[in-house]
């Protein structure tokens, strides 16, 4: 088990937070290397080639954003950001720079492990192909047939609604930022038109959710983006 277990790189300058992360990851079958500085993190990344990176956004010698960019320049390694509440802009920047997901401090171990698993699964999938059929409880998104069903009934979606849902399904379980959605669905020149996204999202929810204001499939992360939840 130990030989085949995945290696996680933890980049966190607070020692007790780093200890907690190490204990949690080891308890979930990972091996752990940790760094408390940005340059140390980059050196460890090169020498150890970890399967996943947990990155604190506030480091003493450089911000998490630049580390994200430097890692992304050479690698597709899954990166999960650790950030504080009220720093949505920081999270969005890191996500748009290529980070896979984020957790807001303080967080529980369940949430952290769930985010890591989703990020790892997506990374593994990038190498093969994205699945053609995504199932979230009663909701089935069949990308091959361009067909969406809820409890077996076909849901009639407009092209934009379908594209939004298919994009979220492709990133199942991961947050997708407003900018990413606008770029993918409308095009790169529409990244400021967040109201397009919001109005069409409201319409999509009306078709999928029993209560649009209390969504169970596509949740809103205020100031960041949307997430299609795993069942």
């Amino acid at each position, binding site marked *: 088990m130990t030989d085949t277990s995945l290696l996680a790189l933890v980049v966190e300058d607070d020692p007790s937070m780093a200890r907690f992360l190490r204990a949690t990851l080891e308890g979930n079958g990972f091996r752990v290397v940790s760094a408390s500085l940005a340059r140390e993190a980059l050196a460890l990344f090169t020498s150890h080639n970890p399967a996943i990176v947990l990155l604190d956004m506030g480091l003493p010698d450089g911000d998490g954003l630049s580390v994200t960019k430097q890692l992304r320049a050479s690698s597709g390694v899954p990166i999960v950001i650790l950030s504080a509440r009220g720093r949505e802009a920081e999270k969005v920047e890191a996500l748009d720079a290529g980070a896979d997901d984020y957790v807001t401090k303080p967080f529980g171990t369940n949430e952290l492990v769930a985010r890591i698993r989703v990020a790892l699964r997506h990374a593994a999938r990038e190498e093969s192909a994205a699945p053609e059929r995504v199932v979230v409880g009663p909701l089935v998104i069949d990308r091959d047939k361009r067909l969406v069903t809820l409890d077996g009934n076909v849901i009639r979606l407009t092209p934009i609604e379908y594209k939004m849902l298919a994009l979220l399904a492709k990133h199942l379980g991961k947050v997708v930022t407003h900018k990413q959605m606008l770029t993918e669905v409308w095009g790169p020149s529409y990244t400021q038109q967040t*109201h397009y996204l*919001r109005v069409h999202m409201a319409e999509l929810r009306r078709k999928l959710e029993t209560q649009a204001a209390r969504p169970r499939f596509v949740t809103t992360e205020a100031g960041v983006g949307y997430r299609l939840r795993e069942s």
Partner: protein
Amino acid sequence: MSLLATAAVIATTVIAYPLADMLGVEAIAMLYLLAIMVVALRLARGPAFLAAGLSVAMFDYFFVPPRLTFAVKDPRHWLSFAAMIAVGVVVSTLVLRMRTQAEEAQRSRLIARTEELRSALLSAVSHDLRTPLATITGAATRLRDDGRAQVDAEEARALIGSICDEAEHLELLLTNLLDMTRVESGMLDVRREWVPVEEIVGAALTRMEQRLRDRVVEVRAPDDARLAAVDPVLFAQVIVNLLENALKYTPPESPIEIEVVGDESGFRVVVQDRGPGFEEGQIERIFEKFVRGSHVGISGAGLGLAICRGIVEAHGGTISAANRSGGGALFTIQVPQRESPPLVPSEVLESNASEAA
């Protein structure tokens, strides 16, 4: 102000001139004194001096014999002139002193109020930080020192449960303190975006999902996804704080209802519960900071609702509280909208998404 002073003296002259023979010079001197006094009481020192000087000149020219000259036949009139100048100087000086004193008193009241708030903050914070910390320390040391030998599984679960709960309290308190500081310092950066209010309510409910899992929450929102110009992150915080408040003050079986209503002029969000509601006289103060509901055994620094008010007012809106008929608390947020929302190009429904492939 000088103009007013001049006008007062001229008016006195105009009134007194036709009555000069009937009243006599002494009475007219009294009229001027009266005018000077009014000016000195109402206006600043400069205009009072001006009024006194002008009065002397006009009184001398128009009334003191020989009239319509500045000559003075009877030296007793010099006394009237002196009295006019003296009244102008003395009264205006006294008024100035009184005003300065009043301002100082106000300033020191303000300082005292700030001090009071600061010490209230300190005591609230130190109490609210210490209590959860004491619980966490106690529970954690028991788990550490006694090991598995003496703590049975059930006790361990209880201890760990209280560590988690209290840590959650601390997190909430710190978030509120930081938010309050931002509201107070005017550093609240309102980034308005066009967003349906129901989406904000949804984001708040998602954030509170774990805490609300055993509660009945009813949401009523219109079907039209009307856009409003608000800061979605800050506004979600308002809803979260109201939900926190409802969780804190109402029994677990009390349902929470959220209603969104909107038209061209603005939107309204109503959050209501079936808890104990408010006591008399409490409603007016509930949005002030450090004011908390008077319920035994409920901790909190009394910041959540003050933050709500800060955020809502930064959006040009109002928040109010009331007792709900039939029991419970009712919070109403009202935010006016000045601009009409941008248009979103509509889209034709594909005849059937499945046929498109």
